[in-house]
């Protein structure tokens, strides 16, 4: 049997590799995305003071530290049974939306952008951020740096620094926003809204007019009929910061809606011996393997899943963009993995609008930023929508508030079964009779890049493509062919 290895940097990097096995006819029999990386935060949380979790779990991911910071902070609210002040909730939500917007835009330009702006079959040498700038112009390229800088400055204002920010306390936040800082944040929000409008227009002009890409979006290679999960507010609108977890079935019908405190009734994880990542599934449907459909407990999270799981966006411009997306893609739910890119832009716009709304709220500069806890801590759970999906923290403590047990359901873990399925589906569609066409590299990259998976910070490639190498071995394990994305 032949084995094909797709390795981000030739067996060295600990952030993800793909193994593809061919059957005796030379067709793909199985594809596995392996995550050769584990740090074990669930264990080394034990013994820590609970209030330090927002400052420890940020180091799970330097790309999305704000997601862990806020998830941990909300878990402390629940743990200490303290309601944050109204202003504190708004400050947190403001920070969170600024983060959501800049992170989505980073993906749009640097990672996903090359696929859909430059085009999926453009030469590899052009399929990168420079290719994107070449296509959209230098002025637009400058706007991107400016957008990211301004939104990350909002994180700096509230949390001290954009990588590993800190402001969360049970019952509130540690720092008040000054009137002058508020002005800076309003400007960032305005810039963000304009930028996202521009980005959506660009998507219209460049992507939707590219038949090749539209065919891929609407075709079968990247489609999976799965359950979808996302946080919604009381009107079932997408909310990144708070709300209930809603799951819809592959037909788009609400399957269940629950509070994070009940997550154990609904989510389970499966372990495989060949990877360090765990695979989430819906407990009451069950683990049926790496398959889609209504009978399989596999669900998806992140932008498209959130939109599928909601009844719309909470902000006006994003709602328009949402309606347009579903109209063009033929109604809800959309199963195409590549539509994650579009949904990500709709969300970036929504997050920017929300930054602006909150920054203009007179209460945002209030000095009433924390309620001190009075209850004895025991157990708490918290949830946010990380850019890459639903993120849950769960702590148990002794009466001093020292962690005895911790559990973390990290966003990409929720998508990990689906990512594996997408990779396998792409491999099965493209590898026939032992032929491994050159184009498979980017086609497979596209299958998982749409999810913006965070276990592989390796996919946060500045050149907009993950360096890949495919080695084709014969029955004896002799290397017969090597393909790389670098030509």
């Amino acid at each position: 049997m032949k084995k094909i290895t797709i390795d981000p940097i030739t067996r060295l990097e600990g952030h993800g590799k793909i193994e593809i096995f061919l059957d005796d006819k030379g067709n793909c029999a199985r594809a596995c995305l392996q995550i050769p990386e584990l740090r074990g935060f669930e264990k080394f949380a034990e013994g820590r003071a609970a209030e330090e979790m927002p400052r420890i779990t940020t180091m799970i991911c330097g790309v999305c530290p704000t997601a862990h910071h806020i998830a941990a902070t909300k878990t402390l609210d629940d743990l200490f049974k303290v309601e944050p002040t109204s202003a504190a909730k708004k400050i947190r939500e403001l920070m969170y939306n600024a983060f959501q917007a800049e992170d989505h835009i980073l993906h749009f330009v640097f990672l996903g952008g090359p696929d859909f702006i430059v085009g999926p079959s453009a030469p590899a040498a052009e399929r990168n951020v420079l290719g994107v700038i070449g296509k959209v112009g230098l002025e637009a390229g400058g706007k991107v740096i400016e957008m990211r800088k301004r939104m990350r400055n909002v994180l700096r204002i509230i949390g001290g620094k954009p990588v590993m920010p800190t402001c969360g306390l049970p019952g509130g936040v540690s720092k008040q926003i000054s009137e002058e800082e508020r002005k800076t944040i309003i400007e960032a929000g305005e810039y963000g809204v304009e930028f996202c409008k521009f980005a959506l227009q660009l998507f219209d002009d460049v992507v939707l007019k590219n038949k090749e890409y539209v065919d891929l979006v609407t075709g079968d290679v990247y489609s999976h009929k799965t359950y979808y999960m996302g946080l919604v507010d009381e009107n079932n609108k997408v909310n990144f910061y708070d709300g209930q977890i809603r799951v819809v079935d592959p037909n788009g019908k609400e399957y269940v809606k629950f509070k994070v405190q009940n997550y154990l009734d609904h989510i389970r994880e499966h372990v495989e011996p060949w990877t360090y990542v765990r695979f989430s599934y819906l407990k009451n449907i069950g683990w049926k393997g790496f398959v889609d459909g209504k009978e399989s407990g596999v669900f998806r999270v992140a932008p498209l899943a959130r939109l599928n799981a909601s009844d719309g966006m909470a902000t006006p411009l994003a709602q328009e963009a949402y309606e347009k997306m579903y109209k063009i893609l033929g109604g809800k739910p959309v199963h195409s993995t590549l539509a994650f890119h579009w949904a990500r832009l709709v969300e970036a716009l929504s997050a920017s609008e929300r930054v602006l709304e909150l920054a203009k709220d007179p209460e945002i500069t209030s000095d009433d930023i924390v309620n001190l806890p009075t209850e004895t801590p025991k157990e708490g759970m918290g949830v946010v929508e990380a850019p890459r999906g639903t993120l849950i923290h769960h702590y148990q403590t002794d009466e001093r508030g020292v962690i005895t047990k911790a559990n973390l359901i990290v966003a990409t873990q929720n998508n990990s079964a689906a990512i594996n399925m997408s990779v396998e589906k792409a491999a099965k569609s493209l590898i026939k009779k032992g032929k491994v066409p050159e184009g498979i590299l980017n086609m497979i990259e596209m299958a998982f890049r749409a999810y913006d998976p965070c276990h592989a910070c390796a996919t946060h490639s500045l050149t907009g493509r993950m360096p890949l190498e495919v080695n084709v071995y014969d029955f004896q394990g002799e290397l017969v062919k090597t393909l790389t994305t670098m030509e």
Partner: protein
Amino acid sequence: MAKPKVAFYWCASCGGCEETVVDLNEDILKVADAVDIVLWPVALDFKRKDVEALKDGEIAVSFINGAVRLEEQEEMVKLLRQKSGLVIAFGACAHLGGIPGLGNFWDRDTIFQRVYKEVPTVENPKGIVPQEKTKIKEGELTLPEFYDTVKTVAQTVDVDYYLPGCPPPPDLIMKAVTAILKGELPEKGAVLAPNKALCDTCPRAESKPEKLSIAEIKRPWQIKLDPEKCFLAQGVICMGPATRTGCGETCIRANQPCRGCFGPVDGVVDQGAKALSMIASILGLEGEEKMTDEEVKKLIDGIVDPAGTFYRFSLASSLLRRKRME
């Protein structure tokens, strides 16, 4: 003249050190212009074999972030050492072990037990844990070995300089790069940040009393944190006195106490021990002689997690290094 070759590599890390480089914004273009990057996995496609093909010492400088936890990380760090004139341990994990170093309170099996068998969401009746080799119907899959102990880069190879912080701030990165390009580097082994304690540059320095005394430890959620007053003077544990400055006091400015990510100043071997002795020397200073043993114990018990507080970032590099293996 040929541009100096530079490598940027990650081990057990989170991507935050890469983000902080991107946070150089426009300055990143200046750096890219002045050097020839031969390895940067997050951004550019160069392979191990390209590094192997270089002459020994041909890379002018390798910046290595992340702690060393997997077999393949150790191999790569050794290879980069061989090929590089200078090795710079970049960021708290490479420098001190960082947060992944907290894993040294346990070992591989205990971590696996928790992560794959115990957590309440895992459904794993057969007790499966990841294996270095797995046979599936279609063939064999391999994973790199997961070590019991997290090591720093300096515990793995000879290190020339350290860029501290979680993450190193962009201004210190630019200063270090400029110093390298101009050949104006300090003595080998130096930490490329000011040799002063955080307290010396803290915006709240003036509110730090001449003689500090803590009558009762306050956890950050037990009081309304004063945004201008020294944390220790409020009874809140702050690692400022035992931590090197250069971070821009970012956490303090967000009204949160220091947690020590920059490591100690020159000459201090063990940051945790230094912090512990500093706290011990100011705890219950007023009326110490009148306190009963019980009162002393109660006062000390206010620090609920001494190891995780004083060794938050430096456990792997400390004299303790790890919990004893049984």
